[in-house]
């Protein structure tokens, strides 16, 4: 995965109009300028422009609201509600300062979010990897149906499971506790983690672990030293997706959490009061919620990209 790519000897650079010089010094003279290009080349160029335009629109669609949120969080009360939003304004950190002072200090909320999302995502990855490995490797009848049943438990709408879960959690004394939230997120993330990880394990040729078994490994050693390192991108992908789900969750948190376990999205919702919406503080919280996930995504994007394409691990 991390082997540096040696420059290919025939990588070329353009060297003036119509001339391409290969790395080995050999020059190829293309058709002189003005000569019409082949229709194939022209059409591929046109489609490339098409793709760029689509990407640009998608990018704007995604980034403009985030940008608006970021800018608003640094505006004072007057600027943020101005009839004509300004891009240039005197920035203020007052919104953020307000969030960490006084009665509604955000620190415990952040802490609850980190704990609930972090622990549940870690558990989902660990358990998902073990179960997914079993699912991928154990020969059994009706395996496809079992796999589908597992992922289908994730397809139920959250609203449908919230009430029964609430009753169960109340019986177990898990309401308003971090373990309760962790468990709730796990019920939703685990099927997904199992299903995703088993797809990654199925991609690893069985002969790799057989080779490790013959070399003297126990099953567990083979799993740890050969299989897990090869599915690193799968583990990272699964972790990030589970983390994002738990971090952004509102529906579970609003039902199960209380003063001892409320998370960031709950804190944000509490800023919407009957006397009005404090847009400055709301966008500041929004930024605090969004930023860590974006940074996490950026940090692991190398694995994420190969992960989402269920990358090749065969090394061939």
């Amino acid at each position, binding site marked *: 995965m991390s082997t540096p790519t040696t420059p290919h000897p025939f990588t070329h650079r353009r060297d003036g109009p119509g001339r391409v010089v290969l790395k080995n010094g050999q020059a190829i003279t293309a058709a002189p300028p003005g000569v019409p290009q082949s229709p194939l080349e022209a059409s591929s160029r046109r489609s490339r422009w098409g793709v760029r335009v689509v990407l640009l629109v998608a990018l704007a669609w995604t980034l403009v609201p985030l940008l608006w949120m970021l800018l608003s969080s640094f505006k004072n009360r007057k600027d943020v509600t101005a009839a004509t939003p300004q891009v240039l304004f005197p920035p203020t950190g007052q919104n953020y300062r307000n969030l960490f002072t006084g009665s509604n200090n955000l620190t415990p909320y952040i802490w609850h979010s980190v704990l609930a999302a972090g622990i549940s995502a870690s558990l989902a990855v660990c358990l998902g990897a073990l179960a997914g490995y079993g699912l991928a490797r154990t020969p059994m009848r009706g395996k496809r149906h079992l796999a589908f049943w597992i992922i289908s438990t994730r397809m139920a709408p959250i609203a449908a499971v919230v009430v029964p879960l609430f009753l169960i959690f109340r019986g177990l004394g898990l309401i308003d506790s971090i373990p309760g939230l962790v468990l709730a997120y796990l019920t939703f993330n685990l099927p997904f983690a199992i299903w995703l990880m088993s797809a990654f394990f199925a991609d690893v040729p069985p002969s790799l672990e057989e080779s490790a078994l013959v070399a003297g490994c126990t099953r567990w050693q083979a799993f740890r030293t050969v299989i897990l390192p090869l599915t690193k991108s799968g583990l990272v992908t699964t972790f990030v997706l589970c983390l994002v789900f738990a971090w952004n969750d509102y529906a579970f948190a609003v039902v199960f959490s209380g003063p001892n376990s409320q998370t960031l999205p709950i804190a944000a919702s509490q800023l919407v009061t009957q006397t009005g919406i404090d847009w400055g503080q709301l966008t500041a919280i929004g930024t605090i919620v969004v930023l860590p996930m974006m940074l996490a995504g950026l940090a692991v994007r190398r694995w994420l990209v190969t992960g989402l394409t269920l990358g090749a691990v065969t*090394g061939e």
Partner: protein
Amino acid sequence: MAQVMYEEATRVYPGSERPAVDTLDLDIPDGEFLVLVGPSGCGKSTSLRMLAGLERVDHGRISIGQRDVTHLAPRDRDIAMVFQNYALYPHMSVADNMGFALRVMKVSKDERERRVREAARLLDLEEFLDRKPKALSGGQRQRVAMGRAIVREPQVYLLDEPLSNLDAKLRVQTRAQIAALQRRLGVTTVYVTHDQVEAMTMGDRVAVLKDGLLQQVATPLQLYQHPANVFVAGFIGSPSMNLAEYRVEGEDAVLAGVRIRLAHETLKALNDEGSDRVIVGFRPEAVAMVGEGDAGSMTFPVTVTVVEELGSDAFLYGQYADTTDPALRENTVIARVDPNAPPAKGDRVRLRITPGKERVFSTATGERLPA
């Protein structure tokens, strides 16, 4: 180093009726290079994987060095295996790949490095030790896979078609190297291939499998000269043996003017079987071109359809001439001819079977009849 024994070893895959390996009895003495050969799907890999502990033994037992390993985990069998797809660990360097088993066995770092270096020197891999498998050619990967096996000193080496991903020339080279290496190390080796030339050139003995059943175990020469049945006769040897069904008339087997005197023992066996037909086979080199005037009892005319000139050898492929029997017209005769004076396509030549070189098989069982 150890003797390997299969005793009635059987494997039936779940969901299939027929055993993939059926009551296999095989005794491989210490230090022998045994080749398992047979057509695709005959159960070679399954037999090997049963020995490795990667496949269950449903019936019978397997022992290595007098120790019953039938139900032992692969790691407790003290074997090294080379897989057809090499199964190199993509995330480890060549050196780590080769030293992996030693690391698992907790061999000290110095000792490990020494043995990896030694194996790398032997296999001409020294300059690649720091590379990942991805950055190697097919031949180099194959050598790493071999290296991973030879850094250890196991009781048995298991190789499953280790050469099948190499190009023809490299395959011939490597096959000689592996055979020489095995002889030097003297470790009992079971080698699986579907290529009978590989089997004949490498093995001390060759075991021929078909449909999960062992057909014959013998030295290459014995297999070639004394095939136990029609299947082995046709499978071993390239080009393959000429086989055709003959009628028995009196003491002779007869086909389109060819008369072959059958041995007394053969006739007795035929009599017991109550059959008046036999399958007669002869190798391409057991026929000679003779003059048109020579009309002995074991000669017959053929029309040449193809001539294969290989330089050191030439083979003619022809059809029986002067026959109205449609089955016979389909039957191609292969004969080795003088490479310096091969016949031309379309020629009519007369061939003579060298007496004593013919092999006679039962039409009912395919087994060779006593001679």
